[in-house]
């Protein structure tokens, strides 16, 4: 398998429509750490886990509507109650049939301590899960949470058989048994993961492919090379600088789409010079975010005016803002800094912490340069992922945190819930996600309303108001929304295109793909 081309037509197709059969080798940019659903929280692992695990709901492509999956319908009966009607006759990989018990046990597994699920918070507002009958599950909330409706479409609530959960517990991470279109065949850690067709998949026709191999190819150049040479049927995570190369290869189709991710610079709003709002504004003027966007992501991303990309509720444009989104103006920056009393040379010195990937590191270096031009000396400190994680979540004393940090934040839902609530709420200081140290009572208040209101129009209003205040107070510099990308060999068809991606959700893209004649 693998062989010369990313796929082969092995011909033992199912229903003779010509779409069935064959295999694909997908080049994965990194090693999945495990194959559990409850820990699937990164762009590498989710590609794989979503093939194995199915959740209650999924999104329609490309319009991002929730649609039935393992649940055939759902309903919010009131502010704090959700009811899910399960599909009957769903078979797990182990041959057992799905019932309400399985669904509840699966959610509870995510909530177990030893699961160490980074997604557990999604159930934060849940009071309990209730089995109404064999095929009905009710969720009772402790308080209203408008974003909860998305949770059943995430990997936080994929479904595994209760018998397996009881027997293996978190060891399911190594030997996953789900209801997804493919089941695990072989896992050579660090090398490849092979999955094969789940013949009893609930959607009769699907999947088309007999088998897929996720080959772990960390080196982007090798992935592109393999795509060019037809070794791989598909890949993702292409290094931004080389996307154009992939784009130009004839037998490869590149799919890019704006993501709900934002590359941004975080100011330390509690300690040091950046606790002064004017200094933050000055620094924002000093940085040419458009140029950085252009040179970093080019056409594979879009310039950011705030944390919320276009198409998401609460999105703002320069004209909505008091400071017009801080257009590049170093002179203005200098005079503002003078006014703020920073006149020396350098005016002051600070540290910018960044992890190593291009998407964060390259802007960091550009920012260092821009700030030095207005007299701020920046020491770029490149750290390993673990140190980075340690600092941004672990360091609660803001006087010990760096003045600046480069961050890439991704939303878990197609709504601002997973952006403005965790990032700007003054309740959410580290070890939670408000690493800006940003505090604004008005914002806190608006966020509370945003959370508890279910009406979409209203929520959009609150979100926009929060966003305007935040952007004008500049707790950070918003730089760009990088596209997410996937590429496939042209002989594979059926990829529905991608909806703007967020981490916890990647469609089980393989399910619908087949080899063209």
């Amino acid at each position, binding site marked *: 398998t693998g062989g010369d081309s990313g796929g082969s037509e092995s011909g033992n197709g199912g229903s003779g429509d010509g779409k069935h059969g064959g295999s694909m080798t997908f080049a994965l940019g990194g090693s999945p750490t*495990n194959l559990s659903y409850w820990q699937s929280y990164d762009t590498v692992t989710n590609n794989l886990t979503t093939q194995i695990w199915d959740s209650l709901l999924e999104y329609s492509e490309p319009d991002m509507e929730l649609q039935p999956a393992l649940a055939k319908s759902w309903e919010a009966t009131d502010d704090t109650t959700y009811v899910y009607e399960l599909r009957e006759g769903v078979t797990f990989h182990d041959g057992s049939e799905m019932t309400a018990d399985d669904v509840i046990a699966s959610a509870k597994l995510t909530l177990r*301590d030893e699961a160490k699920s980074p997604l557990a918070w999604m159930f934060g507002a849940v009071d309990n899960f209730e089995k109404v009958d064999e095929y009905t599950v009710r969720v009772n909330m402790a308080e209203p949470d408008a974003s909860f409706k998305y949770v059943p479409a995430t990997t936080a609530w994929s479904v595994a058989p209760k018998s397996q959960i009881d027997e293996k517990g978190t060891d399911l991470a190594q030997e996953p048994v789900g209801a997804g279109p493919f089941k695990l065949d072989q896992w050579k850690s660090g*090398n490849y993961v092979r999955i094969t067709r789940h013949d009893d998949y609930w959607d009769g026709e699907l999947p088309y492919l007999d088998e897929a191999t996720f080959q*772990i190819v960390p080196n982007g150049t090798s992935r592109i090379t393999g795509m060019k*040479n037809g070794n791989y049927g598909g890949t993702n995570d292409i290094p931004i600088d080389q996307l154009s190369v992939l784009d130009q290869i004839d037998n490869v189709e590149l799919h890019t789409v704006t993501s709900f991710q934002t590359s941004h610079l975080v100011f330390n709003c509690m300690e040091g010079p950046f606790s002064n709002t004017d200094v933050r504004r000055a620094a924002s003027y000093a940085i040419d975010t458009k140029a950085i966007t252009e040179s970093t992501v080019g056409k594979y991303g879009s310039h950011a005016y705030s944390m919320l990309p276009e198409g998401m509720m609460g999105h703002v444009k320069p004209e909505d803002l008091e400071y017009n989104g801080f257009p590049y103006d170093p002179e203005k920056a200098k005079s503002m800094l003078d006014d703020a009393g920073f006149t020396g040379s350098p005016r002051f010195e600070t540290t910018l912490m960044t992890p190593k990937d291009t998407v964060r590191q390259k802007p960091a270096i550009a920012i260092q340069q821009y700030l030095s031009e207005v007299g701020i000396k920046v020491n770029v400190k490149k750290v390993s992922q673990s140190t980075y*994680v340690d600092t941004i979540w*672990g360091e609660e004393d803001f006087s010990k945190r760096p003045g600046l940090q480069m961050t890439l934040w991704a939303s878990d839902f197609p709504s601002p819930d997973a952006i403005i609530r965790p990032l700007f709420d003054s309740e959410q200081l580290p070890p939670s996600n408000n690493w800006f140290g940003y505090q604004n009572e008005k914002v806190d208040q608006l966020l509370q309303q945003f959370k508890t209101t279910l009406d979409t129009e209203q929520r959009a209003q609150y979100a926009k108001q929060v966003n305007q205040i935040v952007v004008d107070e500049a707790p950070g510099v918003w730089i760009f929304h990088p596209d997410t990308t996937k590429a496939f060999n042209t002989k594979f068809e059926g990829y529905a295109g991608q909806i703007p991606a967020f981490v916890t959700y990647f469609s089980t893209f393989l399910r619908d793909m087949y080899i063209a004649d």
Partner: protein
Amino acid sequence: MVSGQTVGYLLKRLGFGVFIVWAVTFLVFALLQLAPGSPADILLSGGVVTEEMRRTVIEQYNLNEPWYVQYGLWLKDILTGDLGYSFAQQRPVATLIADRWAITAQIVGLSMVLATILSIPTGILAGYKHGSKLDLVLTVGAIVGVSVPVFVSGVLAILVFSFHLNVLPSGGAGTGVVGRLSHIFVPSLLLGAMIGALMFRMMRAGMRDVLEKDYMETCTAMGLPKRKIVIKHAAINALAPVLTVSGLWIGFLIVYSMVVEYVFGMGGLGRLIIHAVEAQDAPVVLAGTIITAVVFVVSNIVVDVLYTKIDPRVVIGGQN
């Protein structure tokens, strides 16, 4: 020759080898303890962490014990054959290693073979004809060979041979004998060339030394054929110093195979260790160092035993 003395010597060497391996683990363990960031946080990285979760993890991994207790517990596990559990990968270390050692072993083995094939005959030739044009060409070639870091030659090989010419697989380790060979041949060749350049230099130096030896004169004076003089009498003796350090090279090869694996995207031990080091995934790093140390110690013992075959003056366990 396999006397009580030999057995005794081997026991002594093994005993010392065990000490070395122990000391290595101790050193690495201590270093990792010094590293910033608590293992618990590394374990829990990537999400919102409740205090309770933290506590669970800390207890699960004995992280609240003083480090020497942790070390003791870890050592106990190792002695019972349990290599521990990877923090970052959430899998038993033994599984991780079982999945990956073969690739590394194959790369190391193949590059050693290629290095030997490349270096020994050329080294003999260059040493025998030292000062000649051929010697100069080979010597300069060898210096250039060691001067180009393997990551560079690897990346360039991918660029040229895979991307532009499409004659090489671009990544992965391949399956099946042919598939595996086609994937690891070029990486092993690059690695082998690097080691081979070093071996060549030693072989050449060894030849030169041996050719100065008095017994070479005896060979000439007794009218032995040239081929016999060079191969039987000179090369064997010149091989001895090469052999003594070849144990060192095994370790060298293991780490450099990491680089090769990294560049060519093969999931061997090397990449496992690199990622573990980056993630401060102590159990994996420790297991990795243990493996290299064990391989190192064992290969050095083997080398010593082989050495006595080449140089009978060195009697195992004797006073020389």
